């Protein structure tokens, strides 16, 4: 509402700027001839000064004086001819004036109604972060928690609350930092270690790296029954190509998990996938949480393939821009193998080796990894 009042006042002001001069009586203004005469007079006096300072020789000064005098004479002639041209307001003038006065509100309101967002209030960040939490979006709540933790970085409980939220929002690197802070400040626990492992794996795009495995193992040490840690360690086995051991581990989990555990279906999915050679370790490598696995399995096969293709293409693009990502390359190569695109897998492998140099440690790692997938660098 306030906005419309302001808009109306602004429009009124702008219209007045057009209307007032039109309504005012015509003031007498000096003709251009008067201006010119003044300039010529000044040129004459300046000429005298310049001559006095020796900037112009006496003969030339006289010539110049004559030139200026001629201009003044010409000016007098032109002036007497041009003075009578003031005419009363014509029909055209009235028309132009009317159109101009109408144009201001019509153009402004017309254009604004097409491109404006009058109902959208300004949203300064500080205001968004102090309003009633019940009205806030998840993003805003997270931002508030971040602001709080920036001010009190030693609040372990705060980090503990924020970390799983980051994980769910797929902000994996933030989640890693948050879990590490929570462990450091609020103490070690199986849940935190398992969360840390999941975050590390998520940041690596689903690869359960050595760091992630360390975290999961630490979680199991604290709580041998931690399902998340057991699940991901089995995923790690599958990713290393030790499919049989992975299956054994998952089957062992099925034996010990309580019947209402949310992990039960995730394990079953993983088992189903590792049994079908087509998808092999690829799906498990995405490192999804239980909900994601559910979502993916409820998709039609075409949809799922489309989704996987998009994800792989996205990863490929990311690596083009940011090539020094060892685990990313391994993930890409494996994805292509899983999708049956051997040529592209080989091409990706070649690119990966090229990035780090043929003799580097990374290149050796890539070659060994590719060999484990049944892929050779050159054919």
């Amino acid at each position, binding site marked *: 509402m306030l906005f419309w009042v302001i808009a109306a006042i602004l429009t009124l002001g702008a219209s007045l700027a057009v209307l007032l*001069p039109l309504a005012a009586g015509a003031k007498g203004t*000096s003709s251009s001839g008067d*201006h010119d005469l003044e300039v010529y007079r000044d040129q004459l006096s300046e000429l005298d000064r310049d001559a006095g300072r020796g900037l112009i*020789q006496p003969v*030339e000064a006289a010539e110049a004086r004559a030139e200026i005098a001629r201009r003044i004479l010409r000016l007098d002639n032109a002036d007497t001819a041009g003075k009578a*041209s003031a005419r009363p307001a014509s029909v055209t003038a009235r028309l132009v004036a009317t159109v101009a006065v109408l144009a201001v509100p019509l*153009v*402004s309101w017309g254009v604004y109604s097409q491109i404006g967002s009058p109902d959208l209030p300004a949203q300064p960040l500080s205001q968004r972060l102090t309003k009633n939490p019940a009205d806030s979006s998840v993003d805003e709540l997270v931002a508030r928690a971040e602001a709080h933790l920036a001010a009190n970085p030693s609040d372990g409980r705060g980090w503990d609350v924020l970390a799983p939220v980051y994980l769910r929002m797929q902000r994996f690197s933030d989640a890693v930092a948050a879990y590490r802070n929570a462990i450091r400040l609020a103490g070690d626990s199986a849940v935190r270690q398992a969360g840390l492992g999941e975050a590390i794996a998520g940041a690596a795009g689903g690869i359960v790296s050595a760091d992630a495995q360390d975290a999961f193992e630490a979680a199991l040490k604290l709580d041998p029954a931690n399902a998340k840690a057991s699940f991901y360690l089995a995923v790690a086995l599958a990713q290393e190509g030790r499919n049989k051991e992975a299956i054994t581990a998952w089957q062992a989990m099925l034996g010990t998990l309580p019947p209402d555990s949310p992990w039960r279906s995730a394990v079953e999915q993983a088992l189903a996938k590792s049994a079908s050679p087509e998808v092999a370790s690829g799906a498990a490598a995405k490192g999804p949480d239980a909900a994601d696995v559910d979502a993916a399995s409820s998709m039609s096969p075409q949809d799922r393939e489309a989704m996987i293709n998009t994800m792989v293409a996205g990863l490929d693009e990311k690596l083009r821009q940011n090539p020094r990502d060892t685990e990313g390359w391994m993930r890409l190569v494996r994805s292509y193998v899983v999708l049956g695109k051997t040529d592209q897998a080989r091409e990706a492998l070649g690119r990966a080796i090229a990035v780090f140099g043929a003799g580097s440690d990374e290149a050796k790692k890539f070659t060994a990894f590719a060999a484990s997938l049944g892929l050779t660098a050159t054919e």
Partner: protein
Amino acid sequence: MVETGHFALVLAFALSLVQTIVPLFGARLNNQRLMAVGGPVAVTGFALTALSFVALASAYANSDFSVASVWENSHSLQPMIYKITGTWGNHEGSMLLWVLILTFFGALVAAFGSNLPATLRANVLAVQGAIGAAFFLFILATSNPFIRLNPAPIEGRDLNPVLQDLGLAIHPPLLYLGYVGFSICFSFSVAALIEGRIDASWARWVRPWTLVAWMFLTGGIAMGSYWAYYELGWGGFWFWDPVENASFMPWLAGTALLHSAIVMEKRSALKIWTLLLAILTFSLSLLGTFLVRSGVLTSVHAFATDPARGVFILCILTLFIGGSLALFALRASRLTAGGLFHPISREGALVLNNLFLTTATATVLVGTLYPLALEALTGDKISVGAPFFDLTFGPLMLPLLVLVPFGPLLAWKRGDIIAASQRLMAAFATALAAMLVTGLFIDGASVFAALGIGLAVWLVAGALTDLAVKSGVGSVAPAVMVRRFAGLPRSVFGTALAHLGLGLTLLGIVATLSFGTEKILTMRAGETVELSGHTLRFVGLYPAQGPNYSEDRGRFELIGVSGSPVGEISSAKRFYPVRQTTTTESGIKTLGLSQLYLSLGDEAKDGSVVVRLWWKPLVTLIWGGGLVMMAGAAMSLMDRRLRVGAPSRRRKQASAETPAVLP
């Protein structure tokens, strides 16, 4: 507040349309009322644009991510100063700044133009309004900074880290004040063409605007050069980059305009040429805007991917440049020629200056556009770099710079070249001595160094000679001399300062290019390195955390003669996580007029760091000279001559001012 700004922008567009049409009709019909509309509308239009700009700036300051442009170019963790400067650190905001300055100049004409002939004033405001209308439409149609996002993101994407620098606060506003300032000269020219006559006061009105625009453009270019020097991390101060050329071309043409306007103002000669130059100068400003803003420069193909903006600016360009030149072709023959002069005279010298400067402008234009045209036509990417400009621009500048000191010493209408040469003997001797000293004692191998230093000293000494001769050194008693010196018109000081500044800039360039040294090496903490007599010790690499970046700061100590540290230099590699970008913060230590410049390279695994080190003798003179040139322009602006030309104000001035002091 945001939508108020948006609405104010739309309203300003509506007013610019009125400002274009109504005064134009008024001048045509000789209707006082219609003509009178221009002034208040121009002032109101400026007020609304300013309101709009303030609204956008406050959205940036308050991190209002519901505004798309804020979300794309800001971050809540940025320091406040960069939040605010980020307003114009992007395409949309910088275009808003552009029109803000445009309407500002329009409002100035409206506010202080009461002593202009009514029809001229109306036409000037109409042309100014037309330029404004075109750019308002461009902003609203293709680059609206007030596009909203709903729901609003919680965090922005951060400003390009290279722009997170104080340079952004100064460089674009100065540059735009220069670019857009020339729009007034353009409007005056087109207004004169529309009327078919040039008032005698025309040049007196145009010259101060030219001076103002030229002053700001000089400052903007100098600032931009210094910014690139310290921010890009490899110590170059001019790259012949198309973006730089885009601002350099209007500067060259504007310099020519400045000089031809003197002739027109003093002697009513060169009228038509001055008019054409004013049109060309602003056309080059528009071309610069087009090159930088359309995306043509990053690649001709980028232009094809986002055609709306590029094509729109191209249309504006065609309309204004083509339209004004067509009008010029149509009307120029009706304009009367002015005073006569001999080839060797002050006027003649200024014509020569114009010839050289416009040819140089053409050279830069070819060097800038040819690669673009070639890429568009054949797809071949070539780069016309420093070698091209060294071979073409350099030889053109050389004779011009040699002739500069002669100009101010020649008399109007008919000059005496021999007398002028005699007066310059002292300056010539100084320059020769400088050349000999350079050649014999500093660097005998480089002819360029000796010639360049000689030329720079020649310019400086020539400018001082001008002042000395005009205050009568050697011919009158000291007391009279002091009185004369104090009584010299401000414009004489302006000329001398500007030419002096040019000499200083040249001195800086030549000294840096000829005597600068550089070293690239890997260093470990505790090691020392020596460069041109300065010893630096690498203290170590220290990580630090900024508000929105993390950095590795390398600290270096400058070791004095006694072996104890006398100063510290530090250079850093910064990482901005939001944009995943790394920047280099160079370390600079100013010693006298020279600088020690240091930039950190990659860190090796064993803890050693690549360090690049430059010794840049007299380098600060490059930009110091620019400041002196600006001071010259400011001095000229204060000259009384520029205040004459108005019947009503004349009488007051005559009584207020003492007559020129003359013996």
